[in-house]
């Protein structure tokens, strides 16, 4: 195992050596995100102090209020944790995903998205400019198969590279993997749970994290099993004009699928040339 540790470290060093600018940018982004999160927490704590003092002075009534609010927050966090656990299960679920530039105009595109846990996915464009386009993830490998016969298929192990490729088409993995979306709710969002039964809701409002993440996330889920039946992401208006304003996931069904169904070999036709990504 020592050799494996060394191999992984040398591999990471070689990546940084090959792409120093990208490595620096990624590192700075990570540091900035961490420091911003610290400053935001410090800021929130400073803003809360006078409220806490006022509550303390209000004695018994305030204690009751605080208990009620704490319980609500705990319920919402527990609900988000359960949704995350269920989203990460290796259970295949199919969603229709609608990406809109705003709520009024026609959608940019509709996709059928199949997920099974958080490391495999396959999506297929249903109409408009994405009709017939197949995108997928098979563990560490990402692929894209254009609809045009004979067009080469993109196959890459670089998540960053695939993310950049998607970015040029107004898409992002961050906005497509249900488990990743729910995971971000636990870090950067204020959560509010309501309702129950098959229409239980969790509404999340972003308080920190990158502005490219949704401003609000509205989750409708089945209380009995924690499966998300609708997920609506709304983005801020300060993003570039081409960026989506809204992404909606609607559960179409839950069909058992084995891992091979998502694999590169099954989804990239044998007659397509496979190309990687260049710097």
């Amino acid at each position, binding site marked *: 195992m020592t050799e494996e540790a060394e191999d992984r*470290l040398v591999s990471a*060093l070689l990546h940084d050596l090959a792409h120093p600018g990208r490595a620096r940018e990624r590192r700075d982004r990570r540091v900035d995100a961490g*420091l911003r999160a610290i400053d935001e927490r410090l800021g929130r704590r400073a803003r809360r102090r006078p409220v806490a003092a006022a509550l303390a002075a209000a004695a018994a009534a305030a204690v009751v209020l605080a208990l009620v609010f704490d319980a609500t927050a705990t319920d919402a966090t527990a609900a988000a944790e359960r949704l995350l656990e269920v989203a990460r299960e290796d259970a295949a679920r199919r969603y229709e995903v609608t990406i809109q530039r705003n709520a009024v105009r026609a959608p940019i595109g509709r996709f059928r998205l199949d997920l099974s*846990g958080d490391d495999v996915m396959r999506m297929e464009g249903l109409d408009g400019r994405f009709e017939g386009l197949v995108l997928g993830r098979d563990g560490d490998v990402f692929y894209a198969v254009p609809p045009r016969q004979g067009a080469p298929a993109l196959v890459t192990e670089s998540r960053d590279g695939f993310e950049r490729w998607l970015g040029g088409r107004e898409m992002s993995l961050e906005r497509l993997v249900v488990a990743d979306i729910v995971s971000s709710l636990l870090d950067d969002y204020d959560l509010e749970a309501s309702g129950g039964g098959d229409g239980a809701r969790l509404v999340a409002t972003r308080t920190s994290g990158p502005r490219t993440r949704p401003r609000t996330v509205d989750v409708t889920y089945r209380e009995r099993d924690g499966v998300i039946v609708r997920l609506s992401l709304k983005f801020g208006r300060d993003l570039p004009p081409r960026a989506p304003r809204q992404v909606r996931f609607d559960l179409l069904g839950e069909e058992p699928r084995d891992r091979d169904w998502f694999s590169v070999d099954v989804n990239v036709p044998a007659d397509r040339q496979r190309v990687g990504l260049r710097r």
Partner: protein
Amino acid sequence: MGGHQRRLFEALVREHAQALDLFLRALLRDPGDVDDVFQEALIVAWRRLADYDPERRFGPWIRGIARRIALHRAHAAGARPVLTLDAAAIDALEARIVHVESLPGEAMEDRLEHVGRCVEALPERMRDALRYRYDDELGANAIGERLGLTGPNARKVLERARARVADCIRRRLAVMGGTT
């Protein structure tokens, strides 16, 4: 904690960020997990800054925090594979990062030059394999095609090339009086 302490913390974090980044990328499978654990490690380190002994090195301290967060995350993730290494290998990884930090240079970026020299010293085929893998980001099959090898054999060439780079780093450290 005051503004001075916040600035000092930021300076320390920036100085040790690349080693923390390398550590987490070697340890975690998913870049999303690296983002999350990196951020959480900074938050926890800031919260526990009073526990940090300035007589000791900051890098191993914050990587220790990151390691615990990563282990906790792996535990919480259940069946989802999060970590790439077991406990003994994580110890070995930390030891190797300390070695790389011991290479001469002001910052980790300077130390990458030593890695570059180790790559230059490799036989041509290994150098080509590494260039295809890391510069061009090709998979093993595509590298095999360029080198006239099968995918699995190309993967072996890559592994051997990385092992030789690791060995070269160790030798450079020994020559320069570092620990190995």
